[in-house]
């Protein structure tokens, strides 16, 4: 009765919650929007179907309702394909088919009995917004993190107000019920699970922009994408992370960092004030004189200061002439030095050193094309790294005076829309055959070459859409016709393509603050993480590096890739952990400027000076 293909797809859900935000202007799953539980979103249905296949969950009345509430509109196919290449609609159909057949066989869905605990929760949040239904609980029990098992909660509750959150904390305390807070569930580090109560903040979506103060007040269910959209509407910009991650969750968990952190800072730099509910259920604000000092940093694993119910975040001005630039390099050290130079000289806003893997994956609408493009960029064109920068006209002029070969916004658009032809074998063979003392990109990026490049690439939305499944091409043609889809500034503000990094496999990211003036430290970290991964047969690659605090420090991402449904792959990570954990622990404790993000967890409100310069 189960479809094997659908089961496999369902098991591969990355839990990035991208189906919970309207990042492609397609709208989002209607039943999810109405019911708020993750179970009613495609992500939840994927989990439910996968669990049904494995006999982990009974067919309950809510499960039947979840299956039936999907109207097969196809939005999730478009959304999910854009970042992961997966097509969830087949799973939605398989779930509906299974439930329908199960009912036709005369089976009766399980009616789960209520209990006093659930009744108490419902008194706080309302009848609809607390549950103990196993099908719903299951969707709050696991994520692709390979080093943690399933933990099913007893209850899930969705508060609407800060008072309800406080009441839930008191309720849990009175009953010795452990609890966790879940923003959008996109952290995938096994942090948002509990045997007790999970508070899902999806109903707390208030955003209030204060244009005079260039700030925004956001409730804990507000995602980065939603805040950015609202800020953008006011001509402002937030320093936000992954689009589906909640702003409050991000700040509390790791602190906010992004390529914009070059100019906007990290952690305590990013907010004006935060409101928390402490473990007793009492409110406090960080600007209160008597509030706990969360701006300090301790080099140890530390619990969060409480549940964040409001973040008062800083927004930043934008200018009309902002554009992106990419400066190619075939050498990592040179690229880092250049990024650092920009940081030191305060040139540009967002800055990042990207490897060929990130660049090709971000740009390509399919995994196969990304592989070809990566080869094309690195092997044929010699673009192994790029320093990516967003800046105004003055900043771009400065960069151009520093480096001759740049990819400007027009060329970037041309490359995006002509990507399948950039990866054409004949063209790449021709380019790689240039036996010159400069990398081929230095020749191809000359102004005189623009017309020839355009003739080769023949860029158009139709050309770009050739890379995707035929039935999605019309959608992609419309999508790529929208200017923002090829605009480096917009793409970097909204970060809708960064989740593509996990298109092949789930990504296990290492984030490490590093001293940027000692590039050998960064190179050594990459080398050692690469060595450990090779030893254990784990796919791995350099991610990105962003300068911070005028080029004095940087944040490095290095990634391992694993199939989280494959026990052998989990075991590989488990074995690798025995090496990478002590390595990064020792480095964080003993090397100036190095701090593994593990130690920043739950200290995201700390001042950066407290952990970058210890």
């Amino acid at each position, binding site marked *: 009765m189960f479809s094997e293909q659908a089961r496999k797809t369902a098991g591969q859900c990355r839990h990035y919650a991208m189906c919970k935000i309207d990042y492609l202007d397609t709208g989002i799953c209607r039943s999810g929007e109405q019911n708020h539980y993750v179970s009613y979103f495609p992500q939840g249905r994927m989990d439910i179907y996968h669990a049904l296949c494995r006999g982990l969950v009974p067919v309950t009345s809510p499960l039947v309702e979840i299956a039936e509430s999907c109207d097969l509109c196809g939005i999730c196919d478009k959304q999910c394909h854009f970042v992961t290449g997966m097509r969830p609609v087949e799973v939605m159909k398989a779930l509906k088919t299974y439930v329908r057949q199960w009912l036709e066989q005369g089976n009766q869905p399980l009616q789960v009995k209520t209990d006093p605990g659930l009744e108490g929760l419902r008194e706080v949040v309302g009848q609809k917004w607390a549950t103990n239904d196993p099908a719903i609980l299951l969707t709050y029990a696991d994520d692709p993190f390979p080093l943690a098992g399933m933990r099913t909660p007893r209850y899930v509750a969705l508060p609407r107000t800060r008072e309800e959150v406080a009441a839930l904390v008191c309720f849990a305390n009175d009953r010795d019920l452990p609890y966790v807070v879940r923003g959008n569930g996109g952290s995938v580090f096994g942090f948002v699970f509990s045997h007790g109560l999970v508070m899902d903040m999806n109903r707390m979506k208030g955003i209030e922009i204060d244009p005079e103060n260039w700030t925004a007040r956001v409730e804990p269910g507000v995602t980065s994408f939603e805040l950015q959209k609202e800020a953008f509407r006011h001509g402002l910009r937030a320093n936000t992370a992954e689009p589906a991650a909640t702003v409050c969750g991000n700040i509390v968990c790791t602190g906010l960092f992004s390529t914009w952190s070059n100019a906007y800072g990290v952690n305590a730099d990013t907010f004006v004030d935060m409101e928390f509910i402490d473990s007793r259920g009492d409110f406090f604000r960080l600007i209160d004189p008597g509030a706990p000092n969360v701006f300090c940093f301790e080099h140890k694993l530390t619990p969060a200061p409480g549940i964040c119910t409001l973040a008062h975040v800083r927004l930043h001005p934008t200018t009309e002439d902002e554009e992106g630039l990419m400066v190619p390099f075939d050498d990592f050290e040179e690229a880092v030095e250049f990024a650092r130079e920009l940081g030191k000289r305060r040139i540009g806003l967002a800055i990042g050193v990207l490897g060929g893997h990130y660049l090709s994956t971000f740009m390509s609408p399919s995994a196969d094309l990304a592989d070809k493009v990566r080869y094309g960029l690195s092997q044929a064109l010699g673009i192994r790294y790029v320093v990516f920068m967003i800046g105004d006209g003055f900043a771009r002029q400065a960069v151009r005076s520093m480096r001759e070969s740049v990819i400007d916004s027009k060329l970037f658009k041309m490359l995006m829309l002509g990507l399948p032809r950039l990866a054409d074998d004949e063209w790449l*063979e021709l380019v790689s055959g240039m036996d010159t003392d400069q990398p*081929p990109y230095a020749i191809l990026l000359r102004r005189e070459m623009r017309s*020839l490049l355009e003739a080769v690439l023949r860029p158009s939305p139709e050309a770009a859409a050739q890379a995707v499944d035929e039935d999605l091409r019309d959608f992609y043609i419309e999508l790529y016709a929208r200017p923002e889809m090829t605009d480096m500034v917009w793409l970097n503000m909204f970060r809708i393509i960064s989740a593509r990094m996990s298109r092949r496999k789930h990504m296990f990211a290492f984030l490490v603050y590093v001293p940027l003036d000692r590039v050998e430290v960064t190179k050594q970290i990459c080398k050692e993480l690469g060595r450990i991964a090779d030893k254990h047969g784990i796919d791995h690659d350099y991610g990105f590096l962003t300068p911070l605090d005028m080029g004095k420090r940087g944040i490095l991402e290095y990634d391992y890739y694993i199939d989280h449904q494959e026990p052998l792959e989990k075991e590989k990570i488990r074995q690798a952990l025995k090496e990478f954990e002590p390595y990064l622990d020792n480095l964080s404790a003993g090397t100036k400027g190095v701090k593994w993000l593990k130690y920043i967890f739950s200290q995201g409100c700390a001042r950066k000076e407290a952990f970058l310069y210890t």
Partner: protein
Amino acid sequence: MGSHIVVSLLCRGHRVLVLARERDNASASQRMDRLLNWFGLSQTQRRYMKVLQGDLNLPGLGLKAQDAGTVAADVDETVHCASDTSFSPRRREQVERTNVLGLENLLDVVRKSPCRAFHLISTAYVAGKQKGLCAEDFLQVLEFHNVYEESKYRAEKMATKHCADNKITLHVYRPSIVYGDSNTGRTTLFNALYYPIRTLHFFQKLYTRDILENEGKKAREMGVRLEKDGVLHLPVRIQSSDECGLNLIPVNYFVEAFMTLRRECPEGGVFHVVNPRSTTIRLLADYTRRFFQLEGVRVAEPEEFLKQPRNGLEILFDNHIRYYGPYMQDKRIFEHSRTRAILAGQNIVCPEFSYPVFAICMGYAVETDWGRLV
């Protein structure tokens, strides 16, 4: 060139051990099988061949113990054909690894074997920046045009010393620029002569499509147009002069020369396998226009580029031929009296690089899409 020599040896009944790498998910044997299929060699002819999977860049050539034992016990002669022909300084490490360190690894293995004759396929261009007559002998050269020349020179030096120390007869073959078979056009490599012409062919296809499918907007920007008779006007100037040209030899001539010299000169020595006549770039441009139905491709004096800088097509084209500059304007004369005398005695003469030969070679190149369909 290596595969041509292997086939020639097998056809003459020699037992051949072939060192090959595994690549692109194909084992060394699979790769050799594909090559020999391309040559149309029968299974009977292949029975004396054994493929040894290994890597020249590894100590001991990366051979398995059993294969290393076979080499140590059975080898009488060694032919070294492997070479990295990149010219660019940014590829120095890679070129030196193959051409110098690779040879060192091979010589080390050979030393432990009964091999008493070593055939090194070098290049006439170890002559470096010498002018005039370049002796058919070991040379003292101080300056080179590129890392390839330098690395092959160093390889010759190394082989000379090693062979002298180990009482191995050394044969050094120095071909000039090798192209396909002059009778059939067949080749497995489409570099050197082929690359710049392939670039022009690419431009031709690109702009013809632009004209036919896209109203020729991009073609107009480059001054490209399709004439009524179907000829494409492609304005590409090639910097050169008529005083000098390329020294080109076909692969079939080289193989024949190699087999003859190997047989006729057991005492070894240096052999310049070159063409007594160079081909001017003007003639090559003429052949190209004629074969590909192009106009506008022409030779220009350096001063012309000062008045009118290169367009995008010319920049790309120029970067494909830049490192061939010294060969396109070659004033070196490769002495080859010794080789010529031996080959002439066997009625072996280098074929002229005529238009029919050019057409056969380019016909094969286009038919196989420059090797992509081989």
